[in-house]
């Protein structure tokens, strides 16, 4: 079944089957189900039955209208060969194509197949609609070391992120060779995707860190209302939107941008940002609005107007002080302050229980996509880390940067361009 020459993949590799079905039963039932292999197509439906095609020029889960739930996972690749890595990506592609179409991870599904074998899907998504599931893959800088002969393929834009002032990164929450972002409107669907993909990877890659997000904190389309972060403020009002013609050039790597295999891909930066919400909640509304630079209710810039009014950083109030504070988040993150640099934000609120001090372990799992982090995330975050009044209530504890390759062609695999 491990037929690497096959132009169209029709099932999991032997390794993938080992992961799903357990040793000793491989082969049982192989050859069945080929006619059930699907090629997911776009559906026009929305809501729970929404489904996004996995295959295409770009990966889904980037410009896709931000779903409400997230399960994000970073993996360390085990001591395997480049060929085995390629096979893992092919297996992930196969399973991701099925799951995003609302099918089981393997060809039999959770409740059928050989009776003496464990089911090839874990089952918690059975009877549930696709719920807008997208699965987005990325490659971390570490993948391009000498293990897989990929050093020459490392894009220059896939930098190691610098230390930003105030970073309090925990090594266990940083980095990773590979990442998977699973987004859905149903948390069970997102978890199901990561669970089955990590199961398929057993022996080839293992979880390094993972993160659940329960509420989106930005909109990626104009049709979506702006959600709120755990500070209680609307977040992502000025985000890039899929409908805007200028968005593509800020998000997608263009031909000629460097590594050719990344054309049509995007760079993902993730930051786990702990919010000290206890001290935030004790701060006055005056302080909260000063820090953010917007009103808490409407989300209008303090310079006036409504939510989508452009902030006027020059307008001053009493004592000639600017209405939008010099150290406010909206000012420092704004394109006008950053030579026009923008990013596509796709973050999620999280609460991971509580810490030893009885404080909610809460915050924002920040995700952004961009064409070149050297021109976009890094300068913006450098400015924020230096001066943002919000820093008093934030702590960056996790960090990752990944090259999200272009979408897979039907019959191909994620990252095909990497192994040519």
């Amino acid at each position: 079944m491990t037929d690497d020459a096959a132009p169209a993949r029709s099932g999991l590799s032997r390794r993938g089957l080992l992961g799903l079905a357990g040793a000793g039963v491989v082969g049982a039932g192989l050859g069945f189900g080929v006619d059930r292999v699907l090629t997911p197509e776009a559906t026009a439906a929305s809501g729970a039955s929404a489904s996004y095609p996995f295959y295409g020029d770009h990966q889904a889960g980037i410009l896709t209208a931000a779903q409400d739930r997230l399960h994000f996972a970073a993996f360390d690749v085990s001591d395997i060969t480049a060929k085995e890595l390629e096979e893992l990506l092919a297996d992930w592609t196969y399973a991701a194509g099925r799951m995003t179409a609302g099918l089981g991870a393997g060809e039999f599904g959770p409740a059928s197949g050989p009776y003496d074998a464990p089911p090839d899907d874990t089952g918690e998504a059975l009877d549930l609609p696709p719920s807008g599931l997208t699965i987005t893959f990325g490659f971390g800088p570490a993948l391009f070391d000498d293990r897989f002969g990929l050093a020459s393929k490392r894009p220059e834009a896939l930098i190691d992120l610098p230390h930003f002032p105030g970073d309090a990164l925990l090594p266990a929450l940083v980095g990773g060779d590979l990442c998977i972002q699973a987004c859905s409107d149903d948390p069970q669907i997102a978890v199901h995707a990561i669970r089955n993909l990590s199961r398929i990877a057993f022996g080839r890659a293992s979880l390094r860190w993972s993160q659940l997000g329960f509420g989106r904190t930005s909109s990626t389309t104009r049709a979506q209302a702006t959600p709120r972060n755990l500070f209680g403020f609307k977040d992502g009002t000025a985000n890039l939107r899929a409908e805007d013609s200028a968005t593509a050039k800020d998000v997608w790597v263009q031909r000629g941008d460097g590594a050719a295999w990344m054309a049509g891909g995007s760079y993902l930066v993730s930051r786990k940002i702990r919010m000290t919400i206890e001290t935030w909640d004790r701060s006055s509304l005056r302080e909260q609005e000063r820090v953010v630079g917007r009103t808490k209710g409407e989300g209008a810039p303090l310079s006036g107007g409504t939510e989508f009014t452009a902030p006027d950083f020059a307008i001053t109030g009493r004592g000639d002080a600017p209405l939008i504070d010099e150290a406010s988040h909206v000012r420092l993150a704004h394109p006008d302050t950053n030579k026009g640099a923008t990013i596509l934000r796709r973050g999620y609120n999280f609460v991971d229980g509580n810490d030893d001090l009885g404080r909610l372990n809460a915050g924002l799992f920040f995700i952004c996509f961009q064409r070149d982090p050297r021109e976009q995330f890094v300068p913006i975050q450098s400015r924020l880390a230096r001066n943002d009044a919000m820093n008093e209530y934030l702590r960056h504890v996790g960090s990752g940067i990944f090259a999200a390759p272009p979408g897979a062609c039907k019959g191909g695999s994620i990252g095909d361009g990497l192994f040519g």
Partner: protein
Amino acid sequence: MNRSTATPARTRAAVTVATSAAALLLLSGCVAHAQPSSADATSLEVDSSASDCAVSAAKAPSGNISFAITNSGDQVTEFYLLADDGLRIVGEVENIGPGISRDLVVQAAPGDYFTVCKPGMVGDGLGKAAFTVTDSGADLAADGDDKKLVAAAATNYVAYVKNQVEGLVTGTDAFLAAYRAGDDEKARALYAPTRAAYERIEPVAESFGDLDPKIDFREADVEEGTEWTGWHRIEKDLWQPTAADNGGEAYVPLSAAERTRFADLLQADTASLNDAVHEDDYTVSIDAISNGAIGLLDEVASGKITGEEEIWSHTDLWDFQANLEGARVAYEGVRDIVEAKDPKLVKQIDGEFTSLETLLAGYGSLDAGFVYYGDLTTEQVKELADGVNALSEPLSKLTSVLVN
């Protein structure tokens, strides 16, 4: 998801106010159910336009009155509630951008007032109108003339700040002398007690922009390409980490010349701080004092209680004690003003201060030394954190009562 207009938030705020007002009524011997409605904030709308200052009603019952000001003009506006002389400001909201709404919540006694808007923030304002507060029978806090108390609070606090910084200069000299001379044992002994003077007035130091980063930044706070200086740079050299605790790299002790350089820098930056607080025009506003008390407790909550402030020396409880002392002084400075307005809040803060001070005293004192942070159990840290939360929550209400 578009259910987020300002209205529900305003309702919630009003409910909170109503609750505390009801509690006050209880204290004064009223039956709880007798007059809950009179304790509710009366809500009025104000439209500040280019040509008018339209208030939805010209009178309201005494008690908490909430004005929701919407700026429908195209200039930044302000709204004032003036006393019967048309001059004294009873309540004000400034810096309302065009299209923005903001609330003014005031506790108003029966009497005659004026409302006025000031679009463009210049001149005598626009649409000045008489406003009457009728007697609802609500029990109001005393409305004494706070001016003398406020002036005294500012004078006293400035004196305290100067005194602490002067002590810091002397203490730092002694500490640095030992450090320069290579008497590490003495320098380690002086480190935490000397820093206490700084930690007591930290929000003041932070108000001078670039001084706090030079004096008190932790290693992680420093940007790549910027030199790390100050207390914590020397701390690391006095409590040298193992390679494992130093990101896997062996720590290289500072040479005598480097020691002298970092010592000189800290001495100079401390002198700059001393100069700044001794400027003739140096003063602090009353809300800066109370916010300083709150800020010091936030310092405890975010840095000391987590052991992140003193990662090499583990002397976080010394800082904790100093922050707490500084907060107590700032609070005491405004306490009498607040007590007249909200005795229950003052009683609660008094009690929580004492509880936390007692709890912390169980771990030592600045004179005798404290338990090192690393020697505290998780349960002990949790208990201290709970105490910080218990004090910080009522303390966070201090400024709004003070400036109302």
